[in-house]
């Protein structure tokens, strides 16, 4: 399937990887923002627990995370069965599952970057917005969010890069179905198993680097523009 050229299968892996990574990143943003905000700003019972839980996918070998996902979200899994019954949503062995795996793996990076950024926001500015009649929600959108913009971009890039490179949890939870869950890392893994496929490995690796670097470059440009505005340059 993996040809010696960047054949259709490889292209498919690339397209899939980008889609999975984008979806994983974008879809985990709202929750990531919420969790980061909660961790940074609120004190509540279970604060430490949540904090630890978020970090988990980083500590565990990816395969274990993937296995846990399978146990939870697989068709036989507790949540998975419920999801399938109630909403007809099946994650395991679908590209959505690959996205979930990537999102989970990238989540600690996203949340940490966001949390750092949120903690750096001067609460005095949020107070000022409140005196001007802004609701919490408006304050978040018009003050907090723009001020954490650099952190948000950093988090997005980290998460996207991580999602692009994620392999262990993805293959364990979503397998490597061509066109469905066979992402670049899975393709690379496959190519690595076969002697003499180093060319394919190299091509795919370079491609995924190029994509990640492009994302990085965009984020840098955006972050620099924002910084220039705020700092007065």
């Amino acid at each position, binding site marked *: 399937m993996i040809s010696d050229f960047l054949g259709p299968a490889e292209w498919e892996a690339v397209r899939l990887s980008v889609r999975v990574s984008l979806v994983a990143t974008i879809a985990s943003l709202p929750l990531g923002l919420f969790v980061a905000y909660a961790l940074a700003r609120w004190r509540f019972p279970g604060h430490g627990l949540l904090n630890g839980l978020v970090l988990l996918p980083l500590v565990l070998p990816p395969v274990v995370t993937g296995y846990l996902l399978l146990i939870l979200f697989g068709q036989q899994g507790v949540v998975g069965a419920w999801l399938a019954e109630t909403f007809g949503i099946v994650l395991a062995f679908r590209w959505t599952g690959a996205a979930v795996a990537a999102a989970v793996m990238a989540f600690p990076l996203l949340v940490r970057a966001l949390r750092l950024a949120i903690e750096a926001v001067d609460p*005095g500015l949020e*107070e000022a*917005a409140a*005196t*001007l*009649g802004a609701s919490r929600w408006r304050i978040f959108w*018009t003050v907090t969010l*723009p001020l954490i913009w650099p952190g948000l971009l950093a988090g997005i890039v980290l998460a996207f890069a991580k999602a692009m490179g994620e392999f262990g949890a993805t293959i364990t939870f979503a397998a490597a179905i061509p066109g469905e869950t066979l992402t670049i890392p899975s393709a690379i893994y496959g190519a690595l198993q076969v002697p003499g496929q180093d060319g394919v490995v190299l091509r795919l690796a370079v491609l995924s680097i190029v994509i990640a670097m492009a994302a990085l470059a965009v984020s840098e440009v955006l972050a620099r523009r924002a910084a220039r505005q*705020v700092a*007065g340059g």
Partner: protein
Amino acid sequence: MTLEVDLRHRLGDFQLEVAFAAPPGVTALYGPSGAGKTSVVNAVAGLLRPDAGRIAVGGEVLFDRAAGIDVPVRARRMGYVFQDGRLFPHLTVRRNLRYGGGAEGFDAVVSLLGIEGLLDRRPARLSGGEKQRVAIGRALLREPRLLLMDEPLASLDARRKAEILPYLDRLAREVRIPILYVSHAMEEVLRLATTLVMIEAGQLTDSGPIAEVLERHPVPGLVAPEGAITVTGTIRSFDARREAEVLTPLGPLWLAMVNGDVGDTAACLIDPRKVVLVRGEAVSSRNAVEVTVDALRMAGREVTVGLKAGEAQFSARMGIERAKPLDLAPGRRLIAILDPQPLLDGLP
């Protein structure tokens, strides 16, 4: 609409305990650095939750510890000019100004503050005073029912102050909203305030109509000139330059820069060193009083002359060489030219 404040709060070693009422018009919060002024303002804004007490505006309770009421900051509708600016760094001046609403009056406020040329800049490119002006504008445009101004003019130049002060003055009079105004500059306080709240080390020293408070505590934060007396009276009229004619026990005195209207009370200080005695027939000053020398006292090279004007008593002090040509003796009739200070001049 009146603001009523009664609060107790602990900040580290610092204990705040004040209660006062601020009627429409400007209420000055006056006290040395670290007295607790910002803390009081924060409590009114809702940014500091007092340990105990009650805060109400126009009868609406904003905070009542005992009753468990604590209106959220955003619902208090106050325009707060922070001591430390707090402009939104990511927004242009225009969007900072518009943040609290108020398209209405936008142009007027912008031109009052002289920030027309800055509307598309971000705060990082403003000077200190420009930031302060934008912060004032932002609070004004909120259309608040109460203005909180924590040293709003501290880094503005005299000309700019001279433009903004009358505006605030008018605002307080016309819109009839209370303005809580923190300032160290006595000129500003005297120019604007109708009510004065003096706090020191977290405790209320006094509060009430400015003239009465200043009468009880003559020159806050300053040692009054030796032998000075405070004279109070009722405002009878204003002249074209808004100097007030005040009926005092010493006779009518004309005071510059007095707040209030006809019928209100005004106070001034008579510094013996600034009283000029004249042996002669006529003087051109409006603040000349016919007096009789009551007593003479010498101290070093200075003479203190006790004087009587009708029932009222005061004194004049001068170098001995100045007294000689006057040929002073008890019972002699002279003209005294007073320099009544609405407690405005003479402050360092």
